[in-house]
């Protein structure tokens, strides 16, 4: 027969686990939105999120209550993404890919009828062009953009999730955004041709 303390311990553990699962499920939408652009396609993102949750539910004890659960889930997800060999790196020619920060603005401005309203200039980019441009950014840079700019993670959280120094997060973020703008400029100009 179980000792009362043991029964109480098991009851507490069951309660903690249910709470963990509910908290994790409440974050699923946010996790998916980030996963969608870390993975190459919608299908891959769905698989990745399912694998992440399966692993999280199995290893819930290693989560420290009171810490950032969304970051913990994304850490599992990015590790799985790497393990699954979905990171076939293009060998990016950075000089060719990277332009200065004003490149997109300048190209849109010169292709249009003069710039009077910055928000209207942005609207010349189609949704599809933006999604395609983001997926064309090499993984190392895209991961950081997706976590910080789409997932609202701090530099520190992104550094922990990806297991890289904060300084690397910042430099990849700045360069990645420039690469994204370069890609956007190309697709916008192609459309205008």
């Amino acid at each position: 027969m179980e000792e009362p303390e043991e029964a109480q311990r098991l009851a507490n553990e069951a309660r903690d686990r249910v709470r963990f699962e509910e908290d994790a499920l409440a974050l699923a939408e946010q996790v998916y939105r980030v996963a969608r652009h870390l993975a190459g396609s919608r299908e891959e993102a769905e698989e990745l999120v399912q694998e992440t949750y399966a692993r999280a539910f199995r290893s819930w004890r290693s989560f420290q209550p009171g810490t950032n659960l969304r970051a913990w889930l994304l850490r599992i997800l990015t590790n799985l993404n790497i393990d699954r060999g979905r990171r076939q790196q293009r060998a990016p020619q950075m000089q060719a890919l990277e332009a200065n920060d004003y490149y997109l603005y300048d190209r849109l401005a010169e292709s249009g009828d003069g710039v009077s309203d910055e928000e209207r200039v942005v609207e010349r980019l189609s949704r599809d062009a933006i999604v395609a441009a983001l997926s064309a950014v090499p993984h190392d840079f895209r991961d950081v953009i997706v976590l910080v700019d789409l997932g609202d993670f701090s530099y520190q959280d992104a550094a922990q999730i990806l297991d890289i120094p904060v300084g690397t997060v910042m430099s990849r973020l700045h360069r990645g955004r420039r690469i994204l703008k370069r890609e956007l400029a190309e697709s916008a100009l192609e459309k205008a041709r």
Partner: protein
Amino acid sequence: MTDPCAHCEEMMQPYLDRALSEAEMAEAEAHLAECEPCRRRYRFEESLRVYVRQAVLEPMPAELRQKLAALRIPLE
């Protein structure tokens, strides 16, 4: 001497990320106050970030939510 607009461009991303020191922030703002072209470019970058965020947002498929809930480990 460095070109103030080139320097302002270097500060744009950390400025919008609120990652500049107070002194750098003041320097960027002083330049922006007197330079219309840089101001436009900063405004563009700000709108672009919002626009990109909205453009790439995809809601989670409803059946995925059910699949995730089904992964929960049943209580013994």
